């Protein structure tokens, strides 16, 4: 069953002045449980594609379906709610809320989903345990290393039980040891929780770990390899 279906997606910036074609007719389908890496050189359109697949940006042409719902022309407010229920995000710079504890950061998404306190508590502790940072639950993000913060971010993305998780260059700020640990955890979550991951990356270690690698060049898919 496909969770993402992008058909002929085009994105052009500055349409009225000097147009920049970031994406040129991308067709992409991602099925449940995939561990997909979108790769390519800087400026090839990886982040733009992820933003469009995640409903953070609208395509200039084409359509995007997530879990059989067409989100192409969805209104902003509706999209926010849709993202909350269906999509998890992991950002390159972690983007955790500094004033909350790590556990509260994970709980926060479930709170927005109006999950009850007991569920939130159990799920957040369970995820932090799986990430190997349960002992850091009551600390603030600033007290953790970059790799640990990114693990909290992954736990936060998984907390809402999304249809898939989009991770934009998740290892770009991490050292090799942290990268390896994070990739192992994500692979484990992919297998155990059946979580669907779509990464943008040019980190070879991530590419090696991915089950499917989609390569972009100048806004076009030039290869799509399933291992």
């Amino acid at each position: 069953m496909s969770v993402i279906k992008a058909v002929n997606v085009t994105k052009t910036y500055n349409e009225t002045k000097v147009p920049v074609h970031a994406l040129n007719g991308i067709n992409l389908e991602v099925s449940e449980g995939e561990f997909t890496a979108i790769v390519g050189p800087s400026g090839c359109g990886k982040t733009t594609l992820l933003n469009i697949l995640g409903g953070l940006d609208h395509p200039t042409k084409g359509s995007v379906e997530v879990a059989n719902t067409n989100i192409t022309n969805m209104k902003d407010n509706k999209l926010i709610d849709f993202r909350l229920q269906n999509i998890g995000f992991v950002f390159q710079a972690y983007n955790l809320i500094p004033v909350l504890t790590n556990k509260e950061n994970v709980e926060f998404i479930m709170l927005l989903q109006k999950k009850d306190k007991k569920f939130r508590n159990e799920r957040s502790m369970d995820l932090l345990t799986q990430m190997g940072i349960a002992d850091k639950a009551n600390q603030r993000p600033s007290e953790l290393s970059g790799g640990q913060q990114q693990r909290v971010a992954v736990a936060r993305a998984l907390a809402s039980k999304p249809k898939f998780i989009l991770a934009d260059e998740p290892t770009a700020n991490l050292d090799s040891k942290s990268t390896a640990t994070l990739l192992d955890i994500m692979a484990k979550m992919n297998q155990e929780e059946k979580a669907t991951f779509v990464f943008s990356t040019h980190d070879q270690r991530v590419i090696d770990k991915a089950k499917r690698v989609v390569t972009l060049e100048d806004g076009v898919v030039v290869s799509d390899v399933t291992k």
Partner: protein
Amino acid sequence: MILKIAWKNVWRSRGRSLVVIGSIVVGIWALLFGTGFMNGFMVGYMANIIDHDISNIQIHNPEFKKDLDIKFFIKNGEEKASTIRTWEGVKGATTRTIVSGMISSPKKASGIQIRGVDLKNEAIVTSLDSIVSEGTYFEGINRNPVLIGSKLAENLSVKVKSKVVLTFNDSHGNITAAAFRVAGIVKSSSLSINEMYAYVRQEDINRLIGQEGQVHEIAIITDPRFEESAIVNKYTSIYNGDIAESWREIAPELAMMSEMYSSMLYVLMTIILTALVFGIVNTMLMAVLERFRELGMLMAVGMNKVKVYFMILIETVFLGVVGAPIGLFIGWATIHYYTLNGVDLSNYSEGLEAFGYSSILYPYLDTNVYITVTIGVIITAVIGALYPAWKAIKLNPVEALHKI
């Protein structure tokens, strides 16, 4: 959790938040103290005029009110005053004989109003005995004692026990003069008392004008818990032919001043709170701009715009919620202290007394003012948050997430 985040966000930049909270505290304190100070002036001024001079209610023969002709007495005035004293809400009632005339000393003469007073009841109604600054309250002089105001005594160059001559018309229109001896000098912040009145015993003046047992004025002091209008209505419903007026009608300029001072509170509040709005907007705008990426993340992961908007709004209200009670408490404590001890303005006493103000000021604030100020601060905080909150929800998550 939004409340929790908002609260924690307030303390993210502790110094900046403390500056805003400090400005709220100072603003509220200044507002309360300024209002209390002005109110103290007003209440003190009005209390002096009402308590020592015009009283809460006055009753006259309507014809007497027109030109102070002494032949227009209140019929059965003493009897009516005795009845009024028994009414609920009346603290005291006194009768007066009022005659226009001249006072002369060996050096000067001056136009005055001679007030023949019932010594016991006048002391109850106007506390005349309490404002005797020199000499006694009609004691120590057996024949024709008189009390005069301090300014009048100065103008006439007379002292206690000096002899003065009062000249006036009797009830037949004949000019009558009688020698009086100054028993005491009264001093009040009321210009009339200091300059215009000569108090004599009622029986002395009545004997001299040839109308014994008659009165021109009944002055009533009321219990503050009772409406003056109720007593005025009661009197007019029982006694026809007399005119009963509350202080608002006797001295409409006082009532107008009272209203003017009330509206000054709102003017002062508007000025201070407007200044506060700009401080709050500035702080919250900085807080929003600093957290652009975080706000973008919140919207990206599913926090809707209404929640983001309210989070910023709540953060601002928290600033007010922390600052307002401190400001209210300090304001209340300052006013409470000075209400008990008074603000000594004796350095400016001459100028203040020239305008009828007391040189010791007792700031006063009604509970309503504290409530009004609290509501005002909360509204200010909300207004101050509107623009930064609007700015927050207008951001594009994609752009915000890539802001460095």
